[in-house]
């Protein structure tokens, strides 16, 4: 997201006609940056630095050569821990390309396959970079239709590229006993399928270990939630994206360090902000004016992002792991009707005492943008200012920085 990433992207692009070399350069850059972020995290030992390093470690796995599972943001990654597979999310990879302004290469590749420019650019770029053979070590391709159903054909096609059968979890839209039963059985089925396909038995203790780590991560976040609501931690807007990726795709020991650091941080002096905002859905991952407006040091701060708290109420029960994973997916407030989502967003808005809410309508995302009118009404009713902002999280060429700026500034002026 920084100017540095863009400059590095330019360098990689220079070698693009020699894909192997370009990939090596990309890999090297990510490796060095990850090493840097790890050092910073160890030295500073603060929440944001750990989150930044975990977020990068996700995409880094795609290039390290170890076995990975390509998943979407809402796939229960815990399962892959039992197979010793690191999860990499296609959305995260798309974001990485966007940060370096290289997304057009992947988007064009997908377009060359006939995928419409009107399809969500996370999906297009995710597919495109697989078509470009940038990910070579995927052993599993798995997705759910939980948040959006465009995942199914995209992951099906990505699996084909890797010569694999896609693993799809069908998630019903209501949380009830029969849905929990169906999802947990599907998850168990996937474990058996993978045992056969990978010729490897499922390591229950690793699986349990992962659940225990998450139990502490989410438990700590739940415990700190009231304090955080009072004194939110200062994060750049893009760090909220890092946080949601880390929590969804790699809730590992480093994330544990992040939340432990957060506990300490909260005891020390908290920053004060002039105005507080709730961010809904995602935000652009490339260097852009929104990151300047909502920077860590700005008076205007995004204090909560919807997708970082969607599993706030999930309680982990290690004794019934599949059932509890099913509950994790099904209890997500973004899964069902818009009222549930609105209720959840209102709660975040009240708890964090926000002055305004910004909903980012990522181009081509139907599930999220389709709700915006009802969400706006919900916030209008409680007199919390709401801005519906159109743009694209991945494709920096189909966004107008000037328009972002004008709209946000007008919104800030309106709030006063």
């Amino acid at each position, binding site marked *: 997201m920084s100017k540095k990433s863009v400059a590095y992207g330019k360098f990689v692009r220079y070698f693009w006609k020699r894909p192997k070399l370009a990939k090596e350069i990309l890999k090297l850059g990510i490796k060095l940056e990850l090493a840097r972020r790890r050092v910073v995290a160890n030295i500073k030992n603060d929440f944001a630095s750990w989150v930044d390093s975990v977020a990068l470690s996700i995409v880094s796995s795609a290039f390290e050569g170890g076995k990975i599972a390509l998943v979407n943001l809402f796939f229960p990654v815990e399962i892959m821990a039992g197979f010793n597979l690191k999860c990499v999310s296609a959305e995260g990879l798309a974001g990485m390309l966007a940060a370096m302004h290289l997304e*057009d290469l992947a988007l064009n590749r997908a377009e060359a396959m006939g995928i419409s420019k009107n399809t969500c650019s996370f999906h297009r770029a995710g597919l495109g970079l697989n078509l470009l053979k940038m990910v070579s070590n995927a052993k599993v391709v798995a997705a759910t239709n939980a948040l959006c159903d465009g995942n199914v*054909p995209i992951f099906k*096609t990505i699996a084909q590229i890797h010569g694999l059968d896609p693993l*799809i979890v069908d998630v019903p839209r209501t949380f009830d006993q029969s849905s929990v039963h169906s999802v947990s059985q599907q998850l168990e089925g996937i474990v058996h399928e993978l045992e056969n396909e990978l010729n490897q038995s499922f390591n229950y203790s690793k699986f349990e270990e992962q659940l225990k780590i998450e139990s502490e991560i989410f438990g700590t976040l739940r415990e700190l939630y009231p304090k955080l609501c009072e004194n939110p931690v200062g994060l750049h807007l893009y760090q909220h994206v890092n946080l949601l990726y880390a929590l969804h795709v790699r809730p590992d020991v480093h994330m544990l360090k992040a939340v432990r650091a957060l506990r300490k941080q909260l005891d020390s002096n908290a920053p004060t902000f002039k105005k507080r905002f709730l961010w809904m859905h995602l935000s652009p991952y490339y260097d852009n004016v929104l990151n300047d407006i909502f920077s860590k040091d700005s008076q205007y701060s995004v204090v909560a992002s919807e997708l970082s708290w969607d599993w706030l109420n999930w309680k982990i029960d290690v004794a019934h792991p599949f059932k509890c994973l099913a509950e994790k997916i099904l209890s997500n407030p973004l899964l069902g009707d818009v009222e549930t989502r609105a209720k959840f967003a209102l709660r975040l808005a009240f708890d964090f005492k926000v002055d305004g809410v910004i909903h980012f309508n990522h181009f081509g995302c*139907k599930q999220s943008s*389709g709700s915006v009118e009802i969400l706006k009404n919900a916030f209008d009713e409680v007199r919390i200012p709401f801005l519906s902002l159109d743009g694209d999280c991945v494709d920096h060429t*189909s966004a107008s920085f000037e328009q972002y700026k004008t709209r946000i500034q007008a919104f800030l002026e309106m709030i006063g």
Partner: protein
Amino acid sequence: MIVYNCPLVPFEFFHALKVPFRRIRPNSIEFQKLHPNVCSFCRSAVCSVEPNDVLVWVDSCDSMRRAYDFLKKTNRSFYLHVPVKNDKVVLRAFADELRKLWEKLKETFNREVPVSELEETHSWFLESSKNLEKALFEDPYKAKELFESLSNQEWIGSTKKDTLKVLLVGSWVSEELVKFIEDSGACVLNATCSGPYALLSDIQMKSNVFESIASRILSKKLVCGRFSSDRKLSELVKSFEPSAVVLHTAKFCDFYHFDGQILEKLKVPFVSVEENFSSGGFEQTKTRIGALLESLKRFSKPALNFSYFIGIDSGSTSTKLVAIDRSGNILLQEILKTGADPKESAKRLLMKSSQELKISHEDVFVVATGYGRDAIDFAQERVTEITCHAIGVSYLYENVGTIIDIGGQDSKVIRLEDGKVVDFVMNDKCAAGTGRFLEIVASILETPIEALGEESLKSKQELNISSVCAVFAESEIISLRSKGYHKQDIIRAAHEAIARRIYAMYQRVKGRPPIVLTGGVALNKGLKWALEKLMGVELIVPKNPITTGALGAALIGLQQKT
């Protein structure tokens, strides 16, 4: 009245309950409360819901889910989750959902229907859909009858047979599109969700009727694009043996673009069209399909006795005319602004040329092309500009690999093999990558449009305009200007932005050199330079790049003579 949104519903319930039912259908209005990112078919079709309708709504896609959020506030409604995969676990869960829905509907409509009756209805449904499948290939009239009785949906497809057969796949198609294809001399099998194929599945009746209905819905012969199982398009293509396939998707429907790959492997001629149901009119769709059908048909009318052949290319900005004689010599080339009435401009141009050449109307064969071709009713033949450009350019140069045509309002990239069109793309209804974009640049920078090319070649500094969307780019240009950057550098950056857009289209058709650049914008040296730099090849620009389409049209007339 029950209103349903998608053929994944349990039709058996509606029949067994004997409640009238119908499907939503698009019309020219759109549901404004749904953000424009939502599928255009859905935004338009939900407007057909009336206040008293009872809805049975399937979560076939995100757009339909979001529409339901609104509809359930105004209508009595029932929601049904249809799984995206088909295995024992989800089948059982789905059957359970169906059973619950059955009970709720019985209660709502106050009907005491025993399960045995539902079983009978289900077995009738299976039997009829088998007959429907047979009738599709043998007796389209009967197929129409069966389809309408099963789904209460109006038949959208052909009832006639023809030697030229077009298979329609993808999302909902309209009668209008079917009619257009039929008028072009082909018959249609509609395998989209508005057609009969959506009702066929491959199952045997099971002992539990809810499981059996669940299985029917999940095991369709051609599953829709939302499912994780493969779409067995190749089987359909094998049995129907279409001359061509139209892959039709709704704007913002993510499911069907992937069919292109299957069709490519099957080596069946096809074209992808994306329809914006909200905007009405489908000129681009017609052009694309027309071009595909033209490439299949031979222009072989009986020998005619004409001495002169005139091609008129009626574009959105200008109308072009080329006249040739029986030996193919170019006698005249004329250009006129199209203005508000394309027919009138074409007529004026034709009269002027006839006078100049001193030829009488009886001696002239006229072929019309371009957006306005349908309005030119005095032309003996109408052909799309895709085919005309291909023929015109191939006449001027041998072995052309790709044509890049950048016009005032649209641009297209056409790949040729042995002078024949093998693939093409046209840009969407936006200014990106067209002359319109340059007009905007010219006006902001107060530079005459003809001077843009020369000016940009004087540029000394590389700048970046990241957006290709004219509206966004406009604000970027203004901001660069206010930061004090030189005009020449900004113009160059604008050319580079268009070049990127065109290059993406070039990659999409898997273009290859030699490349000929045509259209009004081909005269812009700065853009040519930017394209060449990006693509790493030299582009050929004909002496008169604006009239190649009209030349092709004239040549088509000449071909008809022989």
